[in-house]
């Protein structure tokens, strides 16, 4: 099952996702994660424990980042530790170009 863990200091938050990023997750992201993360200027998203994604899951991720940016013009968001097979999917849909060079590391 999907779970997450957030570590935070002043302006900075780090979120670890565990499990598949798919349609099931959209509600948790919308209702729980989004309200928490909007408080921070710098957000790091760890995908090291995400083995599978689906289109809706990627859509949710894009939507989350867009919301954070709209909320705070100076926000800095980075996604890290993407698994190679998931990276293949991201490459296919050109996620780097969608989110911007600096987001996907």
């Amino acid at each position, binding site marked *: 099952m999907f779970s997450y863990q957030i570590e935070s200091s002043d302006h900075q938050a780090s979120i670890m996702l565990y499990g598949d990023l798919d*349609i099931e997750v959209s509600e948790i992201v919308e209702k729980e994660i989004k309200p928490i993360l909007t408080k921070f200027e710098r957000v790091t998203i760890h995908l090291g424990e995400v083995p599978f994604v689906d289109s809706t899951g990627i*859509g949710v991720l894009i939507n989350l980042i867009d919301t954070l940016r709209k909320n705070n013009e100076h926000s800095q968001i980075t996604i890290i530790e993407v698994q190679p097979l998931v990276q*293949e999917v991201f490459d296919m849909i050109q996620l780097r170009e969608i989110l911007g060079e600096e987001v996907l590391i």
Partner: protein
Amino acid sequence: MSQSVLSKGRDVIEAIEMGLKLLRTDRDQVSIEVIQQETKGFLKLGMKPAIVKITKMKQTSHIEEKNQEELIHESLEAAIKQLEPEKTVPDKTIGEILPIPPEKEAKDPLEGKVWIKDGVISGKPSVLQYPTITPGKGVEVYKNGELLTETALVTGADHFEIKTAEEITKTTWNITMDSQKLHVTLQVQPGMRKYYQIIDKEPDVHLVAEAKEITEVRNELEYKMVLEAMEVLKIVHGFNHTEIMNAINTEEPGNFTIASGIKPKDGKNGRLELIVDPNKKAGPQKRADGTIDYRENHVIPTVNKGQVIAIIHPPEPGVPGYNVSNEPIPPEQTYPLIVQTGKGTALIEDGQKVVATETGRPMVERKGLIARISIVPKLVHFSDVNISSGNIRFKGDVDILGSVEESMVVEADGHINIFHNANKATISSKSSIILQRNSIGSTISAGKHNVFVSEMVHQLILIHDQFTRLISSINHLMTLPAFKMTDFQSKGLLPIIKLLLEQKFRSILTPLKQFLEIGRQGKHVLDLEWMTMAEQLRLCLMSSIANEYHSMNRLEELADRMIELIDRHQNLKEDECMVSLMYAINSTIYSGGNVSVLGQGCYNSKIHAGGAIKIAGVLRGGEVYARKGASIRETGSDGGAVTKIIVPANQKISIDHVKEGTVIQIGKVKHSFQSEYKHIAARLDETGRLIF
């Protein structure tokens, strides 16, 4: 092989001693033949030396006294042959040195010299002078059995031999026939004998042994051999004896046609001879003095009831030919022309003639061996088209002898010929439109399409290209191991499509929006199929709610329908459609084929031509698109009004006088002119850069 020398001496004993010295051997290791006894003369006159032949034996043996006399007899004959130089073989010769002891009195002119005569090297060393010999071109000189590679001394004891090479090639020949057995070709490569003849050399202290190359052509081909070979190939007909003789006598390699059959004479298919030419191009006519008469450009032929339009000629059969094996070759089959009579025509005289039963313009459509002939009716309107006459809509051709006035419509399936102006009118024909004067604020459209369809097709091609790539990207994505299809049940392919359109296929949206926009603008004239396509594309790519189009099957079906629609409308033959007018202002002109503006020019008008655009005057303001290139006398204006000329990447734009404000675009490359230019011919070079 035993080594032997001929040795000369004043008497037999001296000769033997000389010979033994030459062979560097003893008397008991040789056999000796006395070839000539010495003859004593008086003061050298009539004096003959003694000659002996000394042969070195492998094993020591003695000549049996009994046979001595016989031996002498035999070897005398051999010696005489050797002494007769005429009989020596020139190509392979054994030369021998006949060393003669130097005479003490009366100096011999040959002394100390070497010479070659009849292929034999002879030398006469003197006490102070040993002559030398160098092997030269074409010969191999052996000295005592060893091949010489450089200059060698000729001493009395040496034994010389000259060898020359010989090369013989045989005559080769071959008989071939073409696939129809119509021509028999004899290929001959005559044989050759190449040999070297040793060149005689005058006595000298040094000489070079040389030979000259002699080539002898030897064509060994015989008449009988050719005939036998032809018999094997079953060639019995159409011999060319002169050529066979030429082939067997030739000294050069060559091909000879030694037999030929008779070609069949092809007949003619049935054909239609038109008495009136319906394809006579409507357009300006040349006067006898070479100038152009723009007013005589309405030659559209008309036939009357009962007039014979065409004669149908039956096929003419061909004459069979014969091949070289005397088998007949049938000529190509000929077929009759099938004539289908359409509206206003009938066949008479057993289907040999086509006659008009109505008055109008004859029209012939051909497809292989089928010709369809019909009469297009013609409407002649004798005055202006206005409120009192009403709009004109007609199935055939229309001639309007006056003008078409404000808000009036003329529509025809055939040619439209307007003798005066079109003022804020709408003229459309599925064929050509000729406006003898001007178009003021009018919309003129010629062709089976209209402006909208051609634009829709253009955009749909762009959409289809991206769409098929979108489908293959989706298929690819589904094969990736980390990609889950958990959302497919509830949302279909919508989330994937949305993701891919976000960035990767964003470029599909521009033509798609254009397509929908043109569809909206032209919904009154466009066929339903275009509106259906627009709606389906919108639901598939722009909807935010999942629908029936978001499945792989439906995507593929849609791609197929696009291709079908493109194919059906893209390659319509519109060459016969054309628009010709004198002057256009604030007008929109569409033509499936060419557009010619023959008079003063074109102001603030929009022209779209499926063919070429030719403007004899000025193009000022507006936009023209010419699928097959544009040729314009003057563009732009001193005031800098923007004038745009667009052609596809493989076409040219030529303008005699370019003024400020002219923008040309070839393919996707644009150029704006900021100043004047004369005589430009713009095109793209190999690297895609615009040059002029």
